[in-house]
């Protein structure tokens, strides 16, 4: 598995450099007070595997990987680990930038909030958890339409839900914002379940 992660890293360094720079920049901007940037950063992290899988498909990498001493399970899980480690690095960057801001500008309002960190991690995990099984089943090329439908569906659904200002939606929003650890556990469970589903789907594919 170490080899697979190293290979993904080399590919990202060459072809995903802009994406990596954006993630780092957004993390710093989020720590600087622009919290919306953190959500962009986390979505970029969740999309890293799509990027790598797309490049692999172009190179027909899966044909070779399947013939090497790797199980299909490892190939799938390495992409989930990529998201997990990407989120850890993102949070580390955010914390370092927040600390630096605190040291350089002691009078500024503290930007470090656990609630915020939990929210963005949960979003990253859920976003990857929903999309990755589709990609492992269909491949990036064919999954593109699904990817747009899912992303649009989630964004549109949330928008409609929050703008409805119904009593139900207010209660749910209140519950989620006051029980962020529950949201986090749910996101982790969803991420793990997604990993298991992706393994099953990928094992059915032939190369």
């Amino acid at each position, binding site marked *: 598995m170490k*080899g697979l992660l*190293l*290979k993904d890293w*080399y590919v990202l360094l*060459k072809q995903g450099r802009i994406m990596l720079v954006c993630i780092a920049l957004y993390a710093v901007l989020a720590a600087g007070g622009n919290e919306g940037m953190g959500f962009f950063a986390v979505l970029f992290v969740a999309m890293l595997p799509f990027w790598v899988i797309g490049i692999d498909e172009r*190179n027909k990498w899966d*044909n070779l990987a399947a013939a*090497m001493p*790797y199980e299909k399970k490892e190939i799938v899980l390495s992409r989930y680990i990529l998201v997990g480690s990407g989120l850890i690095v993102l949070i580390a960057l955010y914390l370092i930038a927040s600390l630096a801001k605190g040291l350089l500008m002691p009078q500024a309002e503290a930007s470090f909030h656990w609630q915020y960190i939990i929210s963005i991690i949960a979003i990253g995990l859920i976003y990857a958890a929903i999309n990755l099984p589709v990609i492992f089943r269909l491949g990036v090329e064919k999954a593109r339409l699904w990817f747009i439908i899912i992303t649009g569906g989630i964004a549109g659904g949330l928008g409609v839900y929050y703008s409805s200002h119904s009593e139900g939606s207010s209660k749910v929003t209140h519950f989620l914002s006051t029980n962020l650890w529950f949201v986090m556990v749910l996101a982790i469970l969803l991420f793990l379940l997604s990993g298991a589903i992706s393994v099953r789907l990928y094992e059915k594919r032939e190369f």
Partner: protein
Amino acid sequence: MNALEVKNLSKTYKGFNLSNVSFTLPKGCIMGLIGENGAGKSTTIKLIMNTIRRDGGEITVLGKDNTKDFKETKEDIGIVLDEAYYPEQMTVLQINKFLKYSYKNWEEDRFFNYLKNFKLPEKKAFKEFSRGMKMKLAIAAAMSHKAKLLILDEATSGLDPMARDEILDIFYEYTRDEEHTILISSHIVSDLEKLCDYITFLHNGKLLFSEEKDRLLEEYAIMHCSKEDLRNIPKEKILGKRTSAYGADLLVKRSNGFKQYPLDKAGIEDIILLMIKEGVA
């Protein structure tokens, strides 16, 4: 002991059917897998590597069923597919590092020695390599982790004759160790004739023969006869036929008689071409 045993192997795709393919490759030998495009060579190799599911049959690789704990067995297999398939952004140095963490028995020194012999640049991105260079890199990788079985799918295609000759010598040298075995598919029959101990011929998804090369060369012959003589020869004894205005060249087995006719040696290429022409498949 056999390095590879394939029994009644079947796989059906839409428009293609690999049916009941069986052959055995003894340890320490080289087997050539021959067949035209779409004959089923790559499908057979994919089934051996268990990258596609078989519909029927059994495959034993290095004494183990290839559907059970195959990851361990794959450590002992050096694979070269019809393309190199490494991510094109990676350099040779990066590929070395990736392979080092992928194979338990990775031999870095051996890998770099091959690179030096093949004159492959270490820092150039893979995408800048020619097809020949890519195949050489794949061959170097396959031979640098103490593999006991090399599986090569069109590994020499795209190489110039000099490079092919050099690589065939390396393969030949590799099998001097009696633990080392090679299964190689190729369109270039002359290469296989030079290199292989066994020849397995697939045509339209069916196995036409899997024999020792020397036995094939001893047993099969080309018989020259007139069109009149052709009418007197039992059809079941004609394995292949090429007719011209002056007569006919027939592929026959020496063991079936024909002492009264002039018989020429049949090369592997003659055998497979005439067999396909006659439609024995």
